[in-house]
C-alpha cells in the first residue's frame, strides 16, 4: 500500500480494496484487492468473463462499485471532482474512436472540448501525438479507413493528449495480427520509458502480458488468484492459473 501512495516519474499509484459488483444478482467482482505502483506496467490476465473489463470500468469511473474503494495516490475516487484531480485515460478494446470525426479531431477532442489550447496549439499537439504512435499521415483520415491496429494506436494518441498519469488498456491486442500486437506492446513499454506513466493492462494475451508486465495479476470468476512478477506467476502452483497459462490447442495425430 505504501508504494502505491508514493508518486514518481509522472505516474500515480493505484490501490483497489475489497471491490465488489453484482449485475442482476450475479456477482461479477467478488472482493478485488491489489495495488499498482507508480510508473509500473501492471497486467491483469484472465479468461473471458472473469470480470477484467468490468474492473477496468470501475477504475475509470464508468461503473460504481457495490462495495470497496479505489484510491489514487491515497485519494478515494468517490466524486468526479476528486477523480478530475488525476489524469486518467482508457484505451478501449475497439479503440472507440468517434466515427463522425477525423483521426485528428478524435485525437484533439479532449483539448477542443475543454478549450485548453488554441486551435493552432491543438493542431501541433495532435500532429506530435500521432507522430509518437507512428501515424502522422493519418491526420485527415476517417476512423473507418483505418485497420484495427491503427485504430488502437490512434486511441493511444488520444489518451496521450490528456497527458495521463494512469493509462488503462482494455484488451489492447485483441483482434490484431501478431505484428500489430507487437507494435502495441512496444508502444506500452515506450510510454513507460518516456513519460513514466502508470499502465494497467487488461488482457488474455499471454505473450503481451509476459512481454510488457512488471507484475501480473491473474483473475478468474471475479477474484484475483495471484499477483507477482512474470516469473513468480509462471511458477505459481495453482491448477486454474497453470491451466490458463499453458492452455493450447492440440491436434490429434
Amino acid at each position, binding site marked *: 500500500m505504501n508504494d502505491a501512495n508514493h508518486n514518481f516519474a509522472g505516474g500515480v499509484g493505484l490501490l483497489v480494496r475489497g471491490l465488489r459488483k453484482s449485475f442482476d444478482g450475479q456477482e461479477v467482482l467478488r472482493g478485488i484487492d491489489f495495488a499498482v505502483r507508480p510508473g509500473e506496467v501492471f497486467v491483469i490476465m484472465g479468461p473471458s468473463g472473469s470480470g477484467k473489463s468490468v474492473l477496468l470500468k470501475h477504475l*475509470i469511473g*464508468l461503473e460504481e462499485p457495490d462495495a470497496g474503494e479505489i484510491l489514487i495516490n491515497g485519494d478515494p475516487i468517490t466524486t468526479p471532482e476528486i477523480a478530475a484531480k488525476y489524469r486518467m485515460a*482508457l484505451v478501449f*478494446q475497439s479503440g*472507440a474512436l*468517434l*466515427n463522425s470525426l477525423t483521426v485528428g479531431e478524435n485525437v484533439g477532442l*479532449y483539448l477542443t472540448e475543454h478549450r485548453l489550447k488554441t486551435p493552432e496549439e491543438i493542431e501541433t499537439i495532435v500532429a506530435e501525438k500521432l507522430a509518437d504512435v507512428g501515424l502522422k499521415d493519418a491526420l485527415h483520415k476517417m476512423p473507418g479507413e483505418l485497420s484495427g491496429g491503427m485504430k488502437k494506436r490512434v486511441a493511444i494518441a488520444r489518451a496521450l493528449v490528456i497527458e495521463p498519469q494512469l493509462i488503462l488498456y482494455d484488451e489492447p491486442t485483441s483482434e490484431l495480427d501478431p505484428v500489430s500486437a507487437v507494435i502495441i506492446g512496444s508502444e506500452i513499454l515506450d510510454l513507460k520509458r518516456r513519460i513514466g506513466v502508470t499502465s494497467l493492462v487488461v488482457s488474455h494475451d499471454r505473450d503481451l502480458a509476459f512481454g510488457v508486465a512488471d507484475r501480473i495479476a491473474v483473475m478468474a470468476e471475479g477474484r484475483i488468484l495471484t499477483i507477482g512478477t512474470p516469473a513468480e506467476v509462471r511458477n505459481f502452483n495453482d491448477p486454474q492459473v497453470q491451466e490458463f497459462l499453458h492452455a493450447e490447442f492440440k491436434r490429434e495425430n
Partner: protein
Amino acid sequence: MFENVGEILLLFWRTLLALPQTWRQRHKVMDQFFEIGNASLLMVCVLSFFIGAVIALQTGPILVERSLASAVGGVVGVAIAKELAPVMMAILIAGRIGSAMAAEIGSMRVYQEIDALRTMNINPIHYLVLPRILAIAVALPMLVVFAVLIGWFGGAMVADLNHRMDIPFRVFFSNLQDIVELKDVANGVFKSFCFALIVGTVSCHQGLTTIGGPRGIGRSVTKAVVNSIVLIVIFDYILTRFLLK
C-alpha cells in the same frame, strides 16, 4: 413507452440545465440544423403541397355545391396552418430525423464512443443531446412555416384548376386572408416547437439507452419513431385544447 417517461423527462430537464452551454456548442447546433434542413426540405415541400391539394380536393366541391365557395380558401388555410402542417411535419421529422438521431447515438453507445466521451470528462448531454434538441426545436417550426405556405399554394392550385371548383388564385387567397389569422399560424408553429422537443428528447433518450449491438440499434430506432408519433398525437390533443381556450 410509458415506463420510460420519467427517464425522458429527466433527460429533458438535464438538457434544459445544459442550455448555458449553447454558445459553446453553437457549431454543432448549426451542423445539426443544416443536416435537418438538407434531409427534409424537399420532402416537406412535396408532402405539404399534396396535403394542401388533397384538402382542397376533398372539401372544395362539397362547399361549392352548397354555395360556400368563398369558404374553401379559409377551410384549407385553417386546416393546414393549425393542424395538418405541424402534425404531419412532426411525424415526417420523427421518421426522417428522429430515427437518424436514435441510430447515431445508439451506435455510439453500443460501440463505446459515449463511454470514451465520459472518460474524457465530456458530458454526452452537452456534446450530443443539446445540439440535436436545439437544432430540431429551431428547424421544425421553420419547416412548418414553409409547409404552411406550400400547402396553401397546393390548395389554391387545385381550387383553380379543378373544374368542380374553378376558384381563381386571387379569390382563394383573399378568402383565406379573411378567415385565417396570424394567431392560427402562430398556434401551429407553437405546436410544432413542442413536437420538436418531443421528437428530439425521445430520440436522444432511445439512443442513449440502446443495448445489445446492431439489433438493439434497430429496436431503438423503431421505438424512437413509434413513441414520438404516439406522443405527438397525444400532445396534439392536449395543446389544441389548451390553445382553443
